[in-house]
Structure formats: C-alpha cells, structure tokens
C-alpha cells in the first residue's frame, strides 16, 4: 500500500452497487444517444436520417416497455442517488411517450425542404456560406443524439434522490436543449437569440440551484433528500441555512418550469426555437422539472411545508395571473402558447402546495393530481405546437395571429383540431384540460388552499377569453387574401397531432384509468 495513505486511519470504503436492471430505461436512452453519435461519425450521409430516426424511436419505445415492466418497483438505488418509485416511473413513462412524439415531429421533412433544422448551423445567417450549405439540402441529423441525451437527463431528473444527481440530470437535459433551440431553418437570427437567452438565463438559474445545494449541504451535512428530511425533522442546525438553501433550489427548479417571476425567458425561447423543439421542451422539460420539484418539496423538505408553502402560494398566484393576463396581449401564436404554458405551470403549482391532502386509499392527492395534469397538458401541448407547423406561407410558418384569420375556410380539419387543443387549454369539460384542472383544484381544496383555487378559477376564465378569441378569429373572420395555406405534412407530424388530439379527448371522456394509475403512483420512496 502507498505509504502516504498508510499513515492516516484507513478510510471506510464500500464499492457501490449498481442495479442495472432497474436503471434500464435511462441506460437504453443514453446508450441509443451514444450509438447515434457513432452513426454520425461513421455512417454515410445518405442513410443517416433513416437510421437515426429508427434508432431513436425504437430506443424510446424499448425504454417505455422497460418502464412498464418496472411498474410497482419502490427502491432506492446506486447507494441512494436514484429513486425508482411510483412518481418516478409514472413521469418517466410520460416523458418517453411525449418524447417519441417530439422526435417524430422534429423529423418532419415534407413541410420544408431539408427538414425543420438548418443544414448550416455554424454559418453566419444571411451569408454566402450559409446559402451554399443550404443549397446542398443536407438534413441535420445530429439533432437525434442531442434529443436522446436531453431525454436521458429528463428521465433521471424526477428520479434523482440526491441533489447532486439532480444537478447532473438538470445539466444533461439543459445543454442539448440550448443547442437545439438555435438550429431553426427559418428565421435563424431569432432562433440563435432564443438559444443565447436560454443558455445565459439557464446557466444563471443552474448557479442558483447549485448554491442552494451547497447551503442545504451545510445545513444537513448530506445532499441526500432523505438525509435532509431527517435533519429537518430533528431540527438539527441553523434554520436560516435551510430556508435560504430551499429558496435557492426552488429558484433553479421554478426557472425550468417557467413559473413567474422566473418566466421571462419562456416567450422568447418558445417563439425562436424550431416549433417541434418548442413542443418537445414545453411538454417534456416541464414534466421532468415538475417531477424534480415534487421530489424535493415532498421528500426533502416536506417536513417544513409550513415554511415553504407561503412562497409557493405567492409563486402560484403570480404565475396564474401573469401567464393568463399577459397572454391576452400576444399577437403571435407561439408566444401566446408560451404564456399559456406559464399559466398552466401556475395551475399545476396549486396542486403541488396541497401537501396535506391524503385520500382514504393512502393516495397523496397533491402528487397524483400533478401527475395527471402533466400527462394531460403534455399531450395537448405537443399536439398544438405540431399543428402550428402546418400553417405556412412563403416565409415558413405563419405564426402571426392575424394570419390565422379565416383558417376554418381553408382547412376545417386544422381549425377544428386547434379548437380542440384550445378548449383543453381552457379547461372545457370533455377534454383532458377539464379533468386535470378538476384534479388539481380538488386537491388544493382538500389541502386547505381554497384561495388559490378561487384565483385559479378566475384566471381560467381570463385564459378562456384569449383562447376563444383565436377560435373566433379562425371561424368568423374573413381570410386575408395573401394568407397562409395549410400544408399537408407527412405521417410523422400527422401522428403527433393525432395522438395529441386522441389523448386530449380520451382523458376528457374516460380519464379513470389514468387517474387510478396516477393515484397508485403517488407515493414516494423515502
């Protein structure tokens, strides 16, 4: 043995035990990402697109199957770094299904020559170099491994049981997204601006998160959520460290879900990013980040709910009010949907604050209602953004609301489908949005947060106003002469829109299966 080490007392060392079979979903997705990088390196350009698409979709579906086969697992793994329990598996399954749709709509090539993404990511927008590269018609295929890496991070995010693992997952999911935001084929400057803003603010919020982790470590002496929970219940050391640490970790997580006052990036990024990526981010990132938020606030600092609930109340109210009210003034479809996603984050937060709401069956209502809402919201959102991609004019997507006037006359099918999505966002009965809102609001009432529900219902009415303004515009306005046309997409986008619409209707008419599943999955392992 090394003489230097022999001097001090021998450090206790236990080789970690890695339960590969329980981590299989994440290993499959990350493995496919690595294989995707190899495909980029060694396969000829002609076959790359097809191979990458098949790899990605097959990998996501295989990962989904392994999530399903893990159902009922309730374990802490890898020396306590990862928890595979009901909420983790439920959210992983949701993310995998939504991500499959996201990959499908990102692979669309028939709407725009060469696909959604630019062939010339490194060329200066408007330059001769860009024109030459674009003329080659090269399809960008590196987005597939990038998306798979992001999805791998998203799967780990709600399953991470200590704050450092959570931080690693946060970065793994964020870094590819920053890049994907900047790769739009049309309006490249806007896209690069979105990417830059997202990166700078995202890095800033990661720093907040990390500083919060440091303070919580200072408080509890561990970054394990269960260890922090023990320290909270024994009231061990300085409470100011705990409060500041919790607040800073919350800033990092609330940034990712786009809650007010950490929402300012959302409209710019959602508008500038390639639309299928916007849908992917709005659905999957939000699901993953709410999973992490639930775990930190239910498992880690659940014992001091009295202290953090006022903060969450304020954030939830602000998010609902600002998201709904500012959305009224938007003139761009993507920006309007961005503000709507902010408002929805507020509605989900009303479910999250209901920590005390436990049903007779042992179901934690605060968790199960959030889980259900995320499924409902995710499918509607990814469908709605996919639908935005088919309304086009010569300059690409026609996202200005005035261009959508009279769309029902050009394509009744698109107008009706968009109406369905908007109705779900507004929470009209017989759509998934109604069931989701009903679930979070009843959880909030059971958890003594009735004032929040009052704000939520009023803001739902405000939101319904701007959703139905779009419906009126589509059905009762005269179409502009040089208005956009509705392009016919390939099966990839069609499947995305159809699945979004199908789940929106099914969860509105017949939600009991998914509600039951969310109820069974609502208990965290500790």
């Amino acid at each position: 043995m090394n003489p230097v080490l022999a001097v001090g007392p021998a450090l206790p060392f236990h080789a970690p035990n890695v339960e590969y079979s329980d981590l299989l979903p994440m290993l499959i997705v990350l493995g496919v990402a690595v294989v995707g990088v190899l495909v980029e390196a060694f396969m000829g350009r002609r076959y790359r697109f097809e191979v990458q698409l098949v790899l990605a979709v097959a990998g996501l579906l295989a990962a989904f199957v392994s999530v399903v086969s893990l159902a009922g697992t309730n374990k802490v793994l890898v020396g306590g770094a990862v928890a595979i329990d009901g909420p983790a598996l439920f959210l992983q399954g949701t993310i995998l299904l939504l991500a499959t749709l996201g990959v499908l709509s990102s692979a669309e090539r028939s709407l725009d020559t060469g696909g959604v993404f630019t062939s010339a990511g490194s060329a200066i927008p408007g330059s001769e170099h860009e024109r030459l590269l674009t003329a080659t018609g090269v399809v960008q295929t590196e987005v597939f491994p990038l998306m798979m890496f992001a999805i791998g991070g998203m799967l780990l995010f709600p399953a991470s049981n200590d704050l450092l693992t959570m931080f690693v997952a946060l970065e793994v999911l964020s870094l590819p997204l920053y890049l994907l935001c900047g790769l739009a084929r049309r309006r490249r400057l806007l896209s690069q601006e979105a990417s830059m803003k997202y990166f700078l603010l995202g890095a800033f919020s990661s720093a907040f998160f990390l500083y919060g982790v440091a303070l919580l470590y200072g408080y509890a002496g561990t970054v394990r959520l269960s260890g922090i929970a023990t320290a909270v219940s024994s009231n061990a050391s300085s409470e100011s460290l705990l409060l500041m640490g919790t607040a800073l970790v919350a800033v990092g997580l609330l940034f990712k879900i786009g809650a007010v006052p950490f929402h300012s990036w959302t409209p710019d990024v959602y508008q500038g990013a390639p639309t299928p990526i916007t849908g992917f981010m709005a659905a999957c990132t939000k699901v993953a980040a709410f999973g992490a938020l639930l775990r930190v606030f239910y498992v880690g600092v659940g014992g001091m709910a009295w202290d953090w609930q006022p903060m969450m109340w304020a954030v939830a109210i602000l998010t609902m009010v600002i998201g709904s009210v500012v959305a009224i003034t938007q003139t761009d479809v993507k920006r309007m949907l961005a503000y709507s996603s902010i408002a929805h984050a507020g509605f989900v937060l009303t479910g999250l604050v209901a920590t005390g709401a436990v049903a007779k069956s042992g179901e934690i209502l605060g968790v199960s209602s959030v889980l259900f809402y995320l499924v409902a919201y995710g499918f509607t959102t990814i469908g709605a953004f996919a639908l935005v991609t088919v309304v086009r004019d010569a300059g690409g997507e026609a996202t200005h609301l005035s261009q959508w006037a009279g769309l029902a006359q050009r394509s009744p099918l698109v107008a009706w489908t968009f109406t369905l999505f908007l109705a779900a966002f507004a929470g009209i009965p017989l759509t998934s949005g109604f069931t989701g809102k009903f679930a979070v609001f009843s959880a909030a009432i059971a958890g003594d947060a009735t004032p929040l529900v009052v704000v939520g219902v009023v803001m739902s009415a405000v939101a319904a106003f701007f959703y139905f303004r779009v419906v009126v515009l589509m059905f009762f306005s005269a179409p502009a002469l040089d208005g956009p046309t509705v392009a016919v997409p390939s099966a990839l986008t069609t499947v995305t829109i159809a699945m979004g619409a199908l789940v929106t209707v099914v969860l509105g008419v017949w939600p009991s299966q998914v509600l039951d599943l969310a109820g069974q999955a609502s208990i965290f392992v500790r």
Partner: protein
Amino acid sequence: MTAYVPIIVLGAIALGFAMFSIVAGALTGPRRYNRAKLDAYECGIEPTPQPVGGGRFPVKYYLTAMLFIIFDIEIVFLYPWAVYFDSLRIFGLVEMVLFIATLLVVYAYVWRRGGLDWD
C-alpha cells in the same frame, strides 16, 4: 502533524529539483539568441499587443481546448479509481471500461468530423 511529513519532504524535493535544473541550465547551457525563445510558452495566440476591439481569433482554439478538457476530466476520474482499484475489483474495471469507451466514441466523432485537422 507527522502525517504531513511525507508531503513536506515531497514538496522540498520538487522545489530542490526545480532550483537545481534552473541553476544548472543557466551555468552549463549555451546561450544562443532565438526569437522563438521570447514567445509565449507552449502555444496559442499572441497575448500582446492587444488588437483594437479585442480582435478575432480562430474558433479552432476553442475546439482544441474542449478536447483537452474532456481528456483532462478522464484523468480526474482515473486517478481515484487507481487508488481504490483493490476494493472496486471487477465492478470498477467494468465501469471504467464503459467510461473510457464512451470517451472513445467522442474521440471517434471528433476525428471523423475533422475536429483534429488544423486547416
């Protein structure tokens, strides 16, 4: 305190060797003037004089720096593994092979995409 004696001895040896090399070099080596001797150590862009507005420098440096960091980090992980090789046994070996294989994929990608060509 005795625990720190080996470190202090090691530091003294390192310092002594550095001083010996410099002094021995200055006493015994030939002195021939060469412009390159006044350049910045190792490689990279000239730090002075600064061009107006900061100037531009090739993005190639960025790529090289990124590659360097990747392999630097690899060493950071290899070192503790080497220290605890006995207790980690076959598990540690498999994990390390997986880790290095992943880095190899990165390397292959950079190589195939021309990241290693300077021009």
